[in-house]
């Protein structure tokens, strides 16, 4: 399984080589791998349904990290969507993208990479592996929605999708860590086998749900999904209808068997799910753009799926699997149909399209099949799912009946917007001439028919779906005798279905009044998102303005005060004063110390920068001398060299600074606090040095040990042995820091540079010019 996922990513990386020759060939090559994955999954369906197929690859055994994958009933259902629909949509892309389209090269590679990430997500049997693939799909979605980033609309939609889903992803990671720690394992199959309980789990589940809700566009995070419809239609069909947005639903479905008995899990899922189903359906009724209509429909259906999987009953879960498959199929068909209509007429606005159904009857039939499945008409798979869904909730408690009522209302809206879609796309509108249509090639129509045929085929082949759903739902409580079927006899579910269809069609007939009503909404989640983002920006500006005042003394004072307060208090409270403090242990230390002290005092009196720098140099050399006296030639050598270099650097910089520190002598009110703070900080350093030197409680045996080992490391110089052998990793880290610091200094100083050695070339300025980059790079 790891090999399959990796193959997707590798081929995606190589795909631009194919696109350079022919973009059509690139999509063709890309479609092969998902198709092969689907065949692989179907070939392994037997063991997958029987119990699951495991595969574990050790990644870093020392850290206990491994890549574990597992194929089971739920994974199989998702692979049918991810790889099956993926292959069909990639084939559709061959006809959709023009051969000269600049977006095609990027889209082919990204779509395949996304297919790989999504495959990894549904196969992952480890919470952290799942998280990695989860975020990879978010990034793929960002890149595919943003396209070239040329249009403002694309950029905004892409950023919104990324912000919302990654925000949820991060909270979900927090939840995963809490859950993993509570369970003592990150393996999903082990967590499901022995679900943990306790306070940690109660805290973890809402965080995980937040991730699922943002990814699956649940209330109130849903606006990113309609906004993402700026992406090319195949992308919308694949990511934002069939597969990626199902990731949240998938996560809920994956974890529900373990946690569906907890109110902290089911209540948010049911409330958000029913709410989303209603709001999405309601908003779909007023959309005029066909893609937007379908997007709100997707939002609504995702809410429906959430309810089915989150409820935690056997029948509901079986209905969930049926609806999951049904929704993937019919929504992909509908999106691809919109793409074809858009291709043929140049518009997808409900108010402009007219009479398309007569011009393209084949397309209209395919669209009608899919819309009927969406509306829940027999004998399509959508009907099977909806029947089971009603059956699941038409029992027992008041809450169940309330959910059933919500689902009925949602289904009414679903029928209404299904009718609206068909009417909008294909009907002949009074008072409008037929939209001119040009013909479509088989590359566009064949994939649509492949998806559309899945509705009736799966409907008739319900026993296969039933086996799949039963395998997933086996662990859940509920009526063990229930089976998915086209005909259950007359009963409440059938009545509910009939009511939904009748009321939905009635709503469609009254569409003119309804659209006007649906347009008016007191609450707007999109506006809330925009306000939240603007608010974060304002807070950031406020905080930055307070902290970054741009005054060097203020920064220095902050550092010094923190330094005195935090380690200072700790030293006073916990430090031990040394018992005996010798004044000196070598006579030569005395004159050196006197020189250092005099220079230090003189620095405070210096009014010229140059004098101050020289005096600081004197202090540095004096300290170097003290090192020599104490028998540390290595340290002294480094000290002298660094001191010299910093002196040179100072002098370089001083050329650009005024000679004096200040034009006029500052007033007493400024000088006294500064002097006080400086004195206190200096005093604190001295105290630290004294106290810390007395803090050694063990005899200094380690240095003897090092001295003994140094020759073994091939060095008689213990300092060198430490630097390049015992603590070599530290050295590598430190030179890494130096590397970063050098790059930082160069960019800061050269950031304002513009002209440069190329003779006679025009001067360009600004930080993003090639000239500036050349400067920074040397």
């Amino acid at each position, binding site marked *: 399984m790891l090999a399959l996922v990796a193959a997707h990513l590798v081929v995606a990386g190589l795909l631009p080589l194919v696109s350079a020759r022919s973009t059509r060939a690139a999509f063709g090559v890309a479609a092969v791998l998902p198709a092969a994955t689907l065949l692989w999954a179907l070939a392994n369906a037997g063991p997958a349904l029987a119990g699951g197929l495991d595969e574990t690859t050790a990644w870093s055994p020392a850290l206990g990290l491994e890549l574990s994958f597992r194929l089971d009933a739920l994974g199989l259902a998702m692979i049918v969507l991810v790889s099956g629909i993926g292959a069909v949509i990639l084939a559709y892309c061959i006809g959709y993208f023009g051969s000269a389209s600049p977006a095609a090269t990027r889209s082919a590679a990204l779509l395949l990479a996304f297919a790989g990430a999504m495959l990894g997500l549904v196969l992952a049997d480890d919470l952290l592996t799942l998280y990695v693939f989860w975020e990879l799909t978010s990034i793929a979605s960002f890149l595919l929605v943003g396209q070239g980033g040329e249009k403002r609309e694309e950029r905004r939609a892409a950023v919104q999708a990324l912000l919302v889903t990654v925000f949820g992803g991060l909270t979900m990671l927090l939840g995963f860590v809490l859950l993993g720690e509570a369970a003592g394992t990150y393996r999903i199959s082990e967590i499901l086998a022995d679900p943990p309980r306790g306070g940690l789990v109660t805290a973890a589940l809402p965080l995980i749900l937040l991730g699922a809700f943002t990814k699956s566009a649940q209330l109130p995070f849903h606006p990113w999904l309609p906004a993402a419809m700026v992406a090319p239609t195949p992308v919308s069909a694949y990511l934002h209808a069939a597969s990626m947005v199902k990731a949240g639903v998938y996560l809920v479905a994956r974890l529900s068997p373990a946690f569906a008995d907890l109110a902290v899990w089911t209540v948010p899922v049911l409330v958000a799910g029913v709410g989303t189903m209603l709001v999405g359906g309601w908003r779909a009724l007023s959309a005029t753009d066909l893609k937007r209509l379908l997007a709100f429909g997707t939002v609504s259906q995702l809410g429906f799926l959430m309810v089915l999987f989150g409820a935690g009953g056997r029948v509901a879960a079986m209905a969930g699997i049926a609806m999951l498959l049904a929704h993937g199929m019919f929504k992909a068909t509908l999106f691809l149909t919109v793409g074809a209509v858009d291709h043929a007429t140049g518009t997808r606005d409900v108010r402009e399209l007219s009479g398309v159904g007569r011009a393209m009857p084949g397309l209209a039939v395919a669209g009608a099949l899919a819309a009927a499945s969406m509306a829940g008409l027999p004998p399509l798979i959508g009907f099977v799912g909806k029947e089971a869904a009603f059956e699941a909730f038409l029992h027992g408690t008041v809450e169940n009946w309330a959910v059933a009522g919500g689902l009925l209302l949602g289904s009414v809206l679903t029928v209404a917007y299904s009718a609206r879609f068909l009417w909008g796309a294909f009907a002949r509108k009074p008072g409008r001439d037929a939209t001119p249509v040009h013909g479509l090639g088989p590359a566009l129509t064949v994939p649509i028919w492949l998806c559309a045929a899945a509705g009736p085929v799966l409907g008739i082949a319900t026993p296969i779906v039933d086996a799949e759903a039963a395998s997933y739902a086996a662990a859940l409580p509920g009526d063990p005798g229930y089976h998915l079927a086209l005909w259950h006899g007359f009963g409440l579910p059938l009545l509910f279905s009939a009511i939904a269809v009748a009321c939905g069609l009635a709503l469609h007939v009254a569409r003119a009044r309804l659209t006007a009503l649906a347009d008016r909404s007191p609450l707007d989640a999109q506006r809330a998102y925009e306000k939240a983002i603007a608010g974060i920006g304002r807070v950031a500006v406020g905080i930055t303005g307070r902290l970054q005042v741009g005054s060097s003394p203020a920064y220095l004072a902050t550092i010094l005060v923190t330094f005195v307060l935090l380690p200072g208090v700790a030293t006073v409270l916990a430090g031990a004063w040394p018992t005996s403090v010798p004044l000196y242990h070598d006579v030569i230390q005395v004159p050196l110390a006197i020189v250092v002290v005099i220079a230090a005092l003189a620095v405070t009196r210096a009014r010229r920068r140059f004098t101050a720098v020289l005096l600081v140099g004197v202090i540095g050399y004096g300290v170097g001398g003290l090192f020599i006296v104490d028998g540390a030639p290595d340290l002294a050598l480094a000290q002298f060299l660094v001191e010299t270099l910093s002196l040179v650097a100072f002098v370089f910089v001083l050329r650009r600074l005024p000679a004096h520190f200040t034009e006029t002598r500052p007033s007493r009110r400024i000088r006294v606090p500064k002097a006080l703070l400086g004195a206190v900080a200096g005093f604190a350093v001295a105290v630290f040095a004294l106290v810390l030197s007395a803090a050694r409680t063990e005899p200094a045996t380690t240095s003897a040990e090092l001295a003994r080992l140094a020759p073994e490391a091939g060095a008689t110089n213990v300092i060198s042995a430490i630097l390049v052998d015992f603590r070599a990793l530290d050295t590598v880290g430190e030179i890494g820091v130096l590397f970063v610091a050098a*790059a930082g200094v160069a960019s800061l100083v050269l950031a304002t540079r513009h002209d440069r050695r190329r003779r006679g070339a025009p001067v360009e300025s600004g930080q993003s010019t090639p000239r500036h980059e050349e400067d920074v790079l040397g």
Partner: protein
Amino acid sequence: MTKPFEEWDRPRQAWMLSGDCRGVRQRTLLLEMTTRALFPTVLVFSVYLLLVGHYGPGGGFAAGLVAGLAFVLRYIAGGSDVAVRVRPPVLIGLGLTVALLTALAPTLVGAPVLATTKLALDLPLVGHVETQTSVFLDVGVYLLIVGVVLDLLRSLGAGIERDMRDAGEPR
């Protein structure tokens, strides 16, 4: 074109100070002459420090600083026009690469990262030579430090000088 074996030793680049210096007023002949003699000497000394680090004071850090100071001296004597051919970021990157490769090389033979071993060679004329593989780590540090100092000269030295020239200030 020069004929082979006639002017083969003619310097192709301004390895040492060339004739053109910055403004005549600021030319200090004494410093220039001293630098001519000192610069290669200091560089050789820095290599000595690099190699002797295992047995006495020295090592890659100190050696790199010494070499860097040689370039500083040259810059002070000759000005920014006496540029070094190699670009500082390249040198820094090269140093980091050498250090990282040294760190990772032992994994090829199954040893842990950063493991070291003795290298012993019997060279003709020189005799028995012994050193550690960790000397390559030191070489990486050395290159990186030289690069950092050159970068400093480029940004703070030449960069600021150009700023002043642009602003019309006297140097």
